[in-house]
């Protein structure tokens, strides 16, 4: 089985809120000083799911990332985990795209690979938190999809997927080829060991641009985007906390309850 993992590099989501800044002129996040970008959490988990399937059934795993040169680091991380090949989709024409252009570009790369049986994505990229690229890839390729998986196993004919619902879980079955998006309930991704990290560092990552994928530069990136970002901003916080006074915890507790009663909350 040949599985593609779509992996995105993002600003570290655990950046302290105080270091999170936006450039209002460009509507972009200003990279926090001294904090390196990371592999989007859920994509590491998607890679784990793909690798476990490969270990159970044989085959290979290819990791694809659309991004800047720095996204090599995200690709290398998944290679160190055990993926076989890496592809970086890099072209100035891809810049400032939206979910649709990202999915369209990734789908063309998957078609170019040719023999892909399954695509594993994260449930959402932990920067924009959109949660749609996996499904859009499925639609571009005309494949079935199952989203927010916490378990994936291969059957004789396809995949059996356990999905997370608001009030429990659901088991679904899809024929191959298919797209699966993976959620944190799946479990932690493996931690690569030093020899694997060193071997991955030596691996060559294939680089494809718009031309390699037969994509008209005017149909991808900002030019092809259907979602127009008008404004990115930090919401105002209530800001003024009232610290409850009292000489003892008892007194504080009783003072808090008086406030809550005055607010008609209890």
């Amino acid at each position, binding site marked *: 089985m040949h599985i593609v993992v779509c992996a995105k590099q993002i600003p570290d*989501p655990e950046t302290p809120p105080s270091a999170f800044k936006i450039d209002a002129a460009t509507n972009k996040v200003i990279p926090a000083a001294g904090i390196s970008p990371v592999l989007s959490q859920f994509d590491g988990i998607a890679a784990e799911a793909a690798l476990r399937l490969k270990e159970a059934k044989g085959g290979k795993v290819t990791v694809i990332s659309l991004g800047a040169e720095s996204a090599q680091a995200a690709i290398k991380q998944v290679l160190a985990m055990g993926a076989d090949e890496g592809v970086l989709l890099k072209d100035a024409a891809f810049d400032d795209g939206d979910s649709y252009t990202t999915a369209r570009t990734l789908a063309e790369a998957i078609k170019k690979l040719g023999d892909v049986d399954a695509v594993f994505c994260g449930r959402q990229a932990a*920067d924009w938190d959109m949660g*749609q690229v996996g499904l859009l890839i499925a639609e571009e390729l005309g494949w079935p999809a199952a989203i927010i998986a916490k378990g994936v196993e291969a059957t004789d004919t396809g995949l059996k997927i356990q999905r997370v619902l608001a009030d429990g879980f659901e088991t679904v079955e899809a024929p191959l080829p298919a797209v699966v998006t993976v*959620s944190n309930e799946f479990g932690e991704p493996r931690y690569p060991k030093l020899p694997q990290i060193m071997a991955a560092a030596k691996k060559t990552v294939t680089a494809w641009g718009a031309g390699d994928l037969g994509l008209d530069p005017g149909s991808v990136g900002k030019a092809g985007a*259907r979602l127009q970002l*008008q404004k990115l901003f930090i919401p105002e916080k209530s800001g003024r906390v009232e610290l409850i006074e009292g000489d003892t915890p008892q007194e504080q507790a009783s003072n808090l309850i008086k406030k809550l009663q005055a607010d008609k909350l209890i």
Partner: protein
Amino acid sequence: MANNILVVGELEGGAPSPTTLELLGGAQGLAAGGAVSVMLLGAGASGAAAQAAGAAKAFVSDDAAYDTFNGEQWLTAAQSAVEQSGANVVLVAQSVVGREVGPRLASRLNTAVAMDCVSVADAGGTLQFTRPCYGGNALATYTIATSPAIATVRAKSFEPASGGGAGEVVQLAGAGASRVAVLGKEKAEATGLQIQDAKVVVSGGRGLGAPEGFQQIEALASAIGSDKAAVGASRAAVDLGCSPPSQQVGLTGKVVTPDLYIAVAISGASQHMAGCSGSKVIVAVNRDKDANIFSFAKYGIVGDWKAVVPALIEEFKKV
């Protein structure tokens, strides 16, 4: 500009779900003279149309095969409802349904969807879709030039619709084929009040240290009243095994909007706040006076939970 709006509705116990009524309320406000319609699928849909306040027309199928959500089946129905309604705006809940139907419908109709919106507003004839991103650190406002513009909308973002139900009912085809088979469902063991429905949510974080600490959070919730208060947790507390994943509040957990949210030993990471910042009043108990949670809280107690929580339990019992 007049907007023809289709709400992709969901049924709950044979009636339009509370979120469906909220979307209809939002649609009423945005229609500006255009028509509001609703799609309802599953057993009892025709009857439920009369309860879909704010909708002039309902596109329904009573086929019970729709009762279990299957993306491909719902997608076909939604596509047909969009075509027949002439909608230039489609609203779906940010639910199991919306997460799948939103993107796929957008793809099939060569348009775009803004996911998990908390506001849809008419700015001089152009709809602006605003949604949290960067783990709740930021908000992004989008416009969509293609038609229909699709949005999935977070619960409690609009006031529910008022007025009568749909006067006209149009039948849609029954559920068709799907390549994905739903084999079965397993309910999470949900005992008592659900955190999404509770008036008060008491949540515990990593600072509680161990499951034993978490018992104090449960005791605090029962002191407030087991009919009113439910127990939530941060992801760190879930990871420590203090609480089942179904109780996790946040970006990848549940979004709760109670009147009162009491956060004990939770630092207030943006991904946690993404699930509770819509609460009416937040109370924080934390020993670190600089914890981020205090910039969201209305009231705060700076102190060790080991002293504060037992005192709170005792005082709440007196209320």
